[in-house]
């Protein structure tokens, strides 16, 4: 990996030229010498190559398959480049899968519905998460780490089990209905599981920590004296909040919202378990197209279209993450 060039920026950038005793230099010694000389390039190259092979390359293969046709073969799609009889190289590119997805109203409606659900859920997460994050920042030095831990805990707890917990609450014979019937509020159970309502609950519940944590990180750095200055100048707390605090927390709002919005758009588990067959989301369609129908080219095309929809939010997110990582 001599191709990677290192520019001197910090103290560690100088590559040492170690003067080893050349007498009786064994293979191991020269290897060690090489590692010491090129360690910087090696450090970069190992994770770089891993990500190129296992993260970037797969997307090109998905794109390639999305331009193939379904075939009775293993794997179940036609080859893009093939040597046909007589040594002629043929290249087959079919746009049928995209034409099919974009013309079929089922797919179109599903994309729209996924976006509607993820945008609404993101907004709900923000509405609930913002005051929670603010409350933690405003807490005393003893309560703060404890509260933070209480928010982080569910984030680490199995996603699948958190969704399952809501199945038990929302079912027709579930805890909420049992409770409401027992205290006499309702006679018949309210149908909540396998509805869009349940999907909203599931997404807001499982993604909320992703909203709170970046907001908290942002608010923690705010300078409290700005609020005092505003108060001294006669600004009322509500006014100060909207004119000072809210604008200063925009980076946190954007980071948190994207952390919820992007993965929620492609969500599979929540619409499957809490929505049943009644809520169509694109992640579920993709999964079923692939696993039940074994139509890989269409599944690949569905993934590519989803990626195209999400690419701008992903780039914005990367931009914000990059800035956050470089800030001292």
């Amino acid at each position, binding site marked *: 990996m001599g191709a990677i060039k290192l520019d001197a920026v910090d103290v560690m950038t100088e590559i040492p030229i170690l003067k080893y005793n050349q007498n009786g230099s064994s293979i191991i010694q020269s290897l060690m010498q090489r590692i010491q000389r090129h360690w910087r390039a090696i450090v970069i190259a190992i994770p770089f190559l891993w990500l190129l092979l296992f993260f970037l390359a797969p997307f090109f293969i998905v794109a390639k398959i999305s331009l193939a046709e379904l075939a009775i073969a293993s*794997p179940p799609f036609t080859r893009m480049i093939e040597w046909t009889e007589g040594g002629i190289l043929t290249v087959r590119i079919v746009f049928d899968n995209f034409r099919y997805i974009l013309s079929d109203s089922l797919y179109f409606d599903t994309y729209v519905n996924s976006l509607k659900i993820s945008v609404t859920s993101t907004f709900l997460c923000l509405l609930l998460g913002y005051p929670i994050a603010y409350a933690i920042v405003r807490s005393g030095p003893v309560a703060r780490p404890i509260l933070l831990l209480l928010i982080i805990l569910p984030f680490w707890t199995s996603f699948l089990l958190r969704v399952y917990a809501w199945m038990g609450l929302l079912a027709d014979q579930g805890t909420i209905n049992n409770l409401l019937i027992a205290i006499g509020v309702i006679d018949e159970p309210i149908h909540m599981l396998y509805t869009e309502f349940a999907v909203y609950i599931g997404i807001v519940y499982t993604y909320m920590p992703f909203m709170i944590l970046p907001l908290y990180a942002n608010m923690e750095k705010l300078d409290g004296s700005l609020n005092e200055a505003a108060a001294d100048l006669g600004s009322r707390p509500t006014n100060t909040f909207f004119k000072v605090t809210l604008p200063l927390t925009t980076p946190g709002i954007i980071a948190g919202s994207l952390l919820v919005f992007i993965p929620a758009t492609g*969500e599979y588990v929540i619409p499957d378990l809490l929505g049943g067959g009644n809520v169509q989301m694109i992640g579920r369609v993709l999964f079923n197209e692939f696993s039940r129908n074994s139509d890989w080219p269409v599944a690949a095309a569905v993934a590519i279209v989803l990626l195209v929809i999400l690419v701008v939010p992903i780039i914005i997110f990367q931009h914000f993450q990059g800035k956050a990582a470089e800030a001292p």
Partner: protein
Amino acid sequence: MHGKRSQFLTFMLSVGLAFFYIPLILLMIYSFNESKLVPVWGGWSVRWYEVLLQSEEVWGAVALSLKIAFVNASVATALGMLAGLAMVRFGKFRGRTLFGGMLVAPLVMPEVITGLALLVLFISLKELVGWPDQRGFTTITIAHITFSLAYVAVTVQARLTGMGTTMEEAAADLGAKPFKVLTAITLPRLTPALLSGWLLAFTLSLDDLVIASFVTGPGATTLPILIFSRIRVGLRPDINALATIMILFIAICVTIAAILLFRQQRQDKLNQKFAEGN
């Protein structure tokens, strides 16, 4: 930025915490329900734990998941550490923007896309080079490493930025070679971040359903795949018991990790004060 917390904020905080914890607490309580029907209370009992412990299927899935999680966490921590070092301490290098992008994208990429992409990669690799000859442990572990290393890298980057370069500069001033600075100063100080990164990678792996479902093969059933196949049909008391064990296990791990990180942060602040001469 702390001090007063208005009544409204305290109220929202209480609602939020209740929203987070009531479902989990109820889930755990119902694991001790005698009745076969989860929401119908039939008295206290541990029979579902006994059912669980006798199930070979569950034990097999637990063993496979733990094995994957362990290898994943170890490799992802190593790779994430290298990636974090490269991003924070190496200044500019060719491909840095692409590298940084590939490190961040897995954090938000919808799982169905990552899963499908990795599956077609494994199939193409098998056609081209004959490896991996079958899907299961290896393919799931590789898939998990790929997204876990991004989380470890974020943790490592935050720590490297947080601890500053003062100590490293001092070591360099005293004549330590860059490689020596790395092994004697930087890496030891990274240990808490690496530990919490390892734990994070471990739990992420234990938790993953979608990506594993794509890249698994016949016979390789991880714990989330097993749980999902059972709860798709409805509530099951033995899954409540399993959930209780998993939630408590994770809670203990996270609390330990949080204490480690918190201590480190406090130490950082003390070091900083000391360095500034206050």
